[in-house]
């Protein structure tokens, strides 16, 4: 009566793919930028993802955590992540130097419905680290500029030193096919050339918005959603055209471990992108 062990050949969705850190640098004191390439060249090039999706990154001996992809699928080959140092996994990722190996699996979740957004005005509102998932869709819109009507970016941070992708967005400001507004809550440098105030103070700068024809994308710290959504509702943007991406404890990414459950859905399968209507419908979302 001794159970014999079995040989398994089934596909394993929990198996990470080895990937190499190609480039890494600090975006702010506690946020670092990582450019990553899957070691197997064929797999690196065939890695298909949507804007707003996330991947699981693992560091041996520390564990695995979910991160939104900050690069755009319109530029295949390299994946980019903005990572804030907040826990055991991110601590170890921060210590890794260029050329180090990490584990990567994904992409997971439901991203932004870019096809449905075509022909519409796009307004992107990001606060703090909310720029991480929204940079993906912003760059996607800019790479496919002819598919979208107006593209508007409202970017908020606490202080100038905490604004991630500051230089990149200042450069984008020069483009005349992007309406780019930036704001800091507090200017401790005295040299900030842009708006001072919370991100909602940028709304008056956006003129003649065609609400029915606008899709709003929001991501930021939990406190930001309420105020930003209030503004968007005041502008009469339909509830199911307000899209936001939410954070939950996604531990497995494939709808099995349960940690990201909200009501009867899993954030890792049905999210992390939700509409404001979803939020009203599933009361636990915000």
């Amino acid at each position, binding site marked *: 009566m001794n159970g014999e062990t079995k040989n398994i050949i089934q596909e394993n969705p929990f198996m990470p793919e080895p990937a190499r850190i190609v480039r890494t640098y600090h975006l702010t004191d506690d946020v670092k930028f990582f450019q990553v390439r899957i070691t197997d060249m064929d797999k690196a090039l065939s890695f298909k993802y949507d804007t707003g999706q996330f991947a699981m990154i693992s560091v041996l001996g520390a564990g695995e955590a979910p991160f939104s992809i900050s690069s755009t699928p319109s530029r295949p080959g390299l994946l980019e992540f903005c990572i804030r140092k907040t826990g055991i996994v991110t601590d170890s990722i921060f210590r890794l130097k260029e050329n180090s190996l990490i584990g990567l699996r994904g992409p997971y979740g439901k991203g932004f419905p870019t096809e449905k957004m075509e022909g519409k005005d796009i307004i992107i509102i990001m606060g703090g680290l909310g720029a991480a998932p929204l940079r993906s869709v912003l760059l996607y819109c800019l790479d496919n500029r002819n598919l979208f009507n107006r593209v508007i970016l409202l970017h908020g941070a606490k202080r100038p030193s905490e604004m991630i992708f500051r230089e990149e967005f200042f450069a984008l400001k020069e483009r005349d096919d992007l309406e780019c507004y930036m704001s800091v809550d507090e200017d401790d440098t005295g040299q900030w050339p842009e708006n001072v105030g919370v991100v909602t103070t940028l709304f008056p700068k956006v003129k003649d918005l065609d609400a029915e024809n606008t899709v709003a994308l929001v991501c930021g710290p939990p406190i930001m959603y309420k105020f930003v959504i209030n503004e968007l509702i005041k502008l009469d943007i339909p509830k199911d055209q307000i899209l936001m991406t939410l954070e939950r404890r996604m531990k497995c990414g494939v709808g099995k471990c349960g940690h990201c*459950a909200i009501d009867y859905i899993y954030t890792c399968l049905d999210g992390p992108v939700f509409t404001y209507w979803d939020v009203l419908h599933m009361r636990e979302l915000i």
Partner: protein
Amino acid sequence: MRIFKLKKEYLFPFLESISEGADLWAPTKKPEGKHSFQIIKDFSQIDLDYTRTILPPRKIFLPPSFNMFKATEKKYEADFSHVTEKIIFGLHPCDIHAILIMDQFYKHHYNDPYYIEARNNTLILGHSCWPDEHCLCKSAGTDIIEEGYDLFFSELEKEYLVWIGSSKGDDLIRRKPDFFDENITDKDIQKYIEWREEKDKAFSVSIDFKNMPDLMELKYQDPLWEKLGQACLACGSCSNVCPTCNCYNINDKPFLTENASHISRCWDACTLESYSEVAGGENFREARSLRLKLYYTHKLQAYISKYGKPACVGCGRCIETCPVDINIKTVAQSLDNETVDAFWDRFAKEVTK
């Protein structure tokens, strides 16, 4: 379906003949009187006179903790050492229903090879049962089982009616063709029907599962949840004993002697405080009431809307286990007809007695 008759004295010889090369799991009695599924070394350990085991049979497929990977920087090696040839004997209908729910869950969207492989290498041998005061299977519609087993043993006086549920099950009885009698008499059928009717009358409690999804919605903000949250000890026992709970956590532990890391998976419970906490300290369900609400949303609402049946199979384990009497019965009853004050009075009386 093919049905045979097996004399009771042939049961253990039959089990012995089929368990070559496999681990045979069956209910055994613990010294303190409770039952538990264990690997059987000696047939005298098997005790079929049981209502429910402490832990549900899912522990046999996915143990409370097991390795998923052994990993070095260069290579992740999947570890499937928990997958062995197994036979589980003595499962009651509610537990087999729970396995059917897990079969659906672990194949939904993404296949979970750790469950599916363990399941594919396990034979399910069910056994009939008799309800006690905690059994809710009749309410949950899980008191009868028509699929999900290889063999099912319905106990009559001196014999078993053996129902063949799969082609593998048919192979099993062919190992001892002399033991099995095809000739089922009208008297046998009569005995079986009488037993069914008697069992049907033996249930003392019932809850109305079909109203639960609506009630969960309508009473989302009900003060009942606050009260339950104040009473709950957040010990996670209800999840550990539930046959349909599937949450787990992943640990990555370095083993310096092996120069490798062991990535393991262990049971988790949504009622535990850190369950919904993310890096940086934000906890989406800091309040115990919110965690309880999630637990009961899963059991009473989510599955009904997704799969058309509740995720509760009425096994009664949570009723027997919860130290403060928060369980599927009390929660469903409170949602259904009890005012919060009545709940609180009863709670105070029952817990302090």
